[in-house]
């Protein structure tokens, strides 16, 4: 039997519930002319679906549907809350406050070039997520690939004593001037006993992000030992 009355709409779980609710209502509008019809909405994971007796008419109804789908997705993906989990466990240095770019001034004369609250929100979310991913990996011997259950935080709680601001510097034992990523890889190979990471490995990028973030406010001092 072909479910002819079913319609599938795709939504992204990263969109906030309120926005998603609105999208859901809009998405159904115009597609369901005439009598109410059963609708099925599908999440962007291609698996999670939600059957609704009728299409949501109001923002509130859309929100209910969005929340139900997100709850269903979270239940299947408990690791999906990893960022909240990391934040509940670890202190992360606060990101720079960019609100000064919203101040009135020359931007008023050049409307195409100014930033909005939304820009600031995107910067903050995206940057903090990268840093939180670094914190997660830093504290996980498994994610680091340690063969001896050692993680970075066992010598560097809160990334203390990592000194990202001192690179590049010459390390006699490595035999060259190294960058932070070289020292991360040295630590991975020796104290952590893991394979080194490729320079562009997402884990390396996240680790570097976390170390720099935790040292926020410290002046650069390249070459310092």
């Amino acid at each position, binding site marked *: 039997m072909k479910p002819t009355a079913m319609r599938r709409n795709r939504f992204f779980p990263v969109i906030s519930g309120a926005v998603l609710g609105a999208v859901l209502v809009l998405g159904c509008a115009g597609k369901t002319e005439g009598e109410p019809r059963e609708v099925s909405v599908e999440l962007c994971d291609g698996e999670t679906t939600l059957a609704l007796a009728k299409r949501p008419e109001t923002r509130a109804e859309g929100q209910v549907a969005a929340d139900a789908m997100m709850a269903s997705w979270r239940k299947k993906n408990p690791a999906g809350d990893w960022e909240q989990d990391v934040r509940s*466990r670890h202190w992360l240095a606060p990101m720079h406050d960019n609100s000064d770019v919203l101040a009135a001034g020359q931007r008023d004369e050049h409307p195409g070039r100014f930033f909005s609250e939304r820009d600031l929100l995107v910067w903050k979310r995206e940057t903090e997520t990268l840093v939180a991913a670094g914190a997660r990996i830093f504290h996980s011997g498994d994610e680091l690939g340690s063969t001896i*259950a050692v993680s970075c935080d066992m*010598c560097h709680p809160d990334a*203390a004593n990592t000194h990202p601001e001192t690179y590049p510097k010459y390390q006699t034992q490595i035999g060259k001037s190294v960058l932070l990523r070289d020292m991360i890889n040295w630590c991975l190979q020796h104290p952590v006993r893991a394979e080194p990471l490729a320079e562009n490995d997402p884990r390396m990028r996240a680790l570097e992000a976390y170390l720099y973030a935790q040292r926020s406010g410290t002046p650069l001092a390249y070459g310092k030992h």
Partner: protein
Amino acid sequence: MTKIPKIQGIETQYMAGRERLMRSLENLDRRVFLRVSAAVAAAAATRGVALAHSYQPVMVADAGTPFRFAYISDSHLYEKKLNDRFIRSLLRAVDDVNAMDPQPDFVLYGGDLAQLGQPAELDLGAQILRSLKAPLRMMVGEHDWYLDLGAKWRALFGKDIYSFDHKGVHFVVLNSVVEEDFWSARGLTPMQRMQTVAGLDNRSQSNFQVGAPQRAWLEQDLAPLANDAPVIVFSHSPLYHLYQGWNFWTIDAPEVQRILARFARVTVVHGHTHQLLTNRIGNIHFHGLLSTAWPWPYAPQGLPELTIQMNRPNPFNPQDGCGDGHVDVHADGLVDKVYDLWNRDSIVVPREYLASNGLQSRPKAANVASY
């Protein structure tokens, strides 16, 4: 009449009265002393006082025989099949102590023998420590405790809270890593609880405390002692507020300090911080212990003014910043704290340094400082 200079007994809840009673014993002869102590024991028994040890007031020789005890701490053992590095480090410390000549009177183990409180980790640690030639005094750390809340540790080593007398000095061993229940409401498994506590910078746990019942026990335990009796306390966490984010912190440390404040000569020796750490609050002298497993960085705030930092550990030098050490207890009851750092010169924090509030006998400053 034989003068009995000091009476060191164990507890009764009747502290004030008992203290007076004990003071009155000072000029009694031995026969009367025994009679009175028996009466005190009987009095304690009739009041239903729970005695941590058999009631046994003892006459001690004059405090004043200097002696030395060694320490090993914070070995964080994994099972051998997972990670043999920390095991080899503990073996190195045991070799160090067994090579001491003369042998120390006893060895303090400062807590965190295991990394994740696993029975196999604790068994392994117990097996290694058995090869120490000198007697062993054990203290518990949070890594030993939070898988089964101390069941395995106590089965291996006995009480986690106790006291003993040695050559005129009264020693107290505390369990300072008591945390309020953060796990039940979150439905954490014992292993999740253990892993949470095992993360030094994991803020989703509670802070350490000694707790009211243990403080009451401590007060009782110390009650018979005169104010000039030398006292040395072992606690895993520092008994002062250093840095809360890493549990370099014991919530009720101020209350414990108040209990210790009446003593003219009292030293607290603590593990957990894995570094050279020195403090003085009133008459209480504090010393940290080195770890055999890894050094911790100095906390970003709260470092005591009297602490002379050890050089920043060099990651290219395996086991740098780690080690063991010993404590020389002088005739006056004050101590020299010796940090036997591996692959480096030892650092001594002498009693004069703390007694003079840092004016005399200052250890050399670090030339590779933390920042």
